């Protein structure tokens, strides 16, 4: 089966059709996808700002990252699931827009950046003391995360813009 056929199958599935044609469900899912960004991208933004050194410098990184982690992971779960539903509802239309695969690739990059950060620095930062200057690589990882997630948000918003114009 070709990719185009899979996309048609998803688009015409019961779930896809029901979502696309419902008056309330589609807007609600899109609202959740957008407003849920406050939990996912929004909370990770504050971790990034701490890494860069703009927010809560009086606290060790670990005391910002650890207590926010479950909330932001829950946020990303909601963002991904609602995004998946929007995709199922609009698979044929959305895959015609070049920005969509770019957005997905950027999400993978941002995810890899986060995974690398956890692997390389996760343990070490547990013993870090407040006020000590963070290694340049850590601040850079924070900046990369901030820029990557911002670009994902911008790409996400430009997709409906390109689709309906």
């Amino acid at each position: 089966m070709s990719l185009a056929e899979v996309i048609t199958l998803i688009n015409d599935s019961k779930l896809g059709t029901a979502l696309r044609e419902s008056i309330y469900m589609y807007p609600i899912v899109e609202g959740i996808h957008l407003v849920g960004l406050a939990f996912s991208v929004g909370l990770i933004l504050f971790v990034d700002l701490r890494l860069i050194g703009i927010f809560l410098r009086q606290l060790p990184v670990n005391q910002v990252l650890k207590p926010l982690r479950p909330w932001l992971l829950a946020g990303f779960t909601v963002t991904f699931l609602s995004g998946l539903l929007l995709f199922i509802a609009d698979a044929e239309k959305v895959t015609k827009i070049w920005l969509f695969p770019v957005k997905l690739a950027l999400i993978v990059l941002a995810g890899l950046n986060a995974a690398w950060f956890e692997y390389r620095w996760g343990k070490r930062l547990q013993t870090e003391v407040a006020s000590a200057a963070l290694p340049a690589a850590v601040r850079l990882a924070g900046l990369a995360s901030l820029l990557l997630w911002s670009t994902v948000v911008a790409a996400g918003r430009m997709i409906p813009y390109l689709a309906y114009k």
Partner: protein
Amino acid sequence: MFEHIFNNIQNSGIGSFLGKQNHLLGAIAELLHIAGLILLLASLLVTGLRLMGWGLVSLSVADLAKSTSRFIWLGLALLVISGLILFVPAANIYYPNKIFWFKFQVLLLALVAHFTLYQYVTRSKQVHLWVARIAALIILGLWFSVAFAGRFVGFF
């Protein structure tokens, strides 16, 4: 009366100036509106979680609220400026939209709550945990409702 005001806004000097600009300006305003949205809601969320006894508990509510305050105002400033750029050149479209009116009624309530309830719970020395929790739920509920309403404007 409002119909007349909205019409005057759209046909004002700024309204027709903005209306003549490239679509790019609208796209930039939409992006800034989302940037402001995420900044505002996430700052309120960090503070709200703390009020409920979760999240950044190694800081006092007062200290955390001091740190998030500038992000709240920056987010709100971005929202208002970009929101006006979207609204002014198209005021007449929004006049009959019920959800548009609802958004600004709730926004008014959210601002009132911010200058009263929010200030009270983030500045008082002794607030009962359950008072703080209910206050945080009200504050977050109002602001998230503004955001949901904002997204629904375009659908209905």
